[in-house]
């Protein structure tokens, strides 16, 4: 089984480490960083994952040509950004402007600003331990399906208890932008919960 074949080289490393050279070490060391960079630029997590994979493959192929003059992380991020640019060129689209939410919001409200779909019951609050576990599994699915820009805002404020100013400066946006993102995240989450959570129980709220 793959898990049991672990050479010392492929242990996850946290502390100081000599210049590396195994795929497991690279991925463990830089994977999350590259993923965050990709997520901030593309519309969904699956695409972000693919682009991170493309970047690692390209970097691995040309690792001999890495001259070591910059940080490896800087080099990897540069490769990733090229892959992101390629992705948008192939898709024939402009990169998503951060803050351009108009089209999605129009799918929730009509031209008069009224809900397109009715607001149904949601069956909160929860009743007991089992309901809580099930609910949180569904929450995790729904939050992970949010477009990354919305998911990150929601995560900072609601999951990590960051203040508005902390969250907005971390994301590099204004507090108003942050409020709009959180609002959109809540709209989408509510819809996802309505679909999945309700499927399992009788609405009573």
């Amino acid at each position, binding site marked *: 089984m793959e898990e049991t074949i672990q050479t010392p080289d492929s242990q996850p490393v946290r502390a100081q480490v000599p210049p590396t050279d195994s*795929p497991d070490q690279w991925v463990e060391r830089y994977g999350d960083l590259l993923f965050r960079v990709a997520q901030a630029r593309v519309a969904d997590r699956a695409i972000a994952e693919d682009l991170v994979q493309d970047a690692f493959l390209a970097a691995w192929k040309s690792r001999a040509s890495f001259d070591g003059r910059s940080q490896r992380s800087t080099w990897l991020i540069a490769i990733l950004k090229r892959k992101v640019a390629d992705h948008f060129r192939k898709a024939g689209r402009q990169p998503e402007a951060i803050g351009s939410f108009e089209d999605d919001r129009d799918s929730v409200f009509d031209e008069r*600003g009224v809900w397109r779909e009715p607001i149904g019951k*949601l069956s909160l609050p929860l009743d007991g331990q089992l309901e809580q576990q099930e609910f949180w599994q569904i929450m995790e699915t729904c939050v992970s399906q949010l477009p990354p820009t919305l998911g990150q805002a929601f995560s900072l404020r609601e999951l990590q208890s960051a203040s508005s100013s902390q969250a907005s400066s971390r994301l590099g946006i204004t507090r108003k932008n942050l409020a709009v993102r959180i609002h959109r995240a809540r709209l989408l989450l509510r819809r996802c919960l309505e679909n999945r959570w309700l499927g399992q129980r009788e609405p009573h709220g």
Partner: protein
Amino acid sequence: MNSPDLRLILYCQCQQASLLASESLDRKLSLSERIAVILHHGICTHCRRFAKQLRQLHKLIASAPAALRYSLAERLDALSPVAKKRIAQAMRDSAN
């Protein structure tokens, strides 16, 4: 006293009211904003229900143990272990 924002109050529809309901969870609304929401809720059951559900959801998340919230945040922010294995394997498989 600031003059009330009459345009906000008179022309507040679901799109605006739902945004204000969301913002009310995170900051104090102005007097005009509160009036706009109250008046709109008076005529719109959807928005009334939406605001109530938002409050319930917000409270549910806020009262969850920190460990649960933070571990969810961490999983969202990172490449999944499955993805990491797949990528490392693809690197090993790539002709080099």
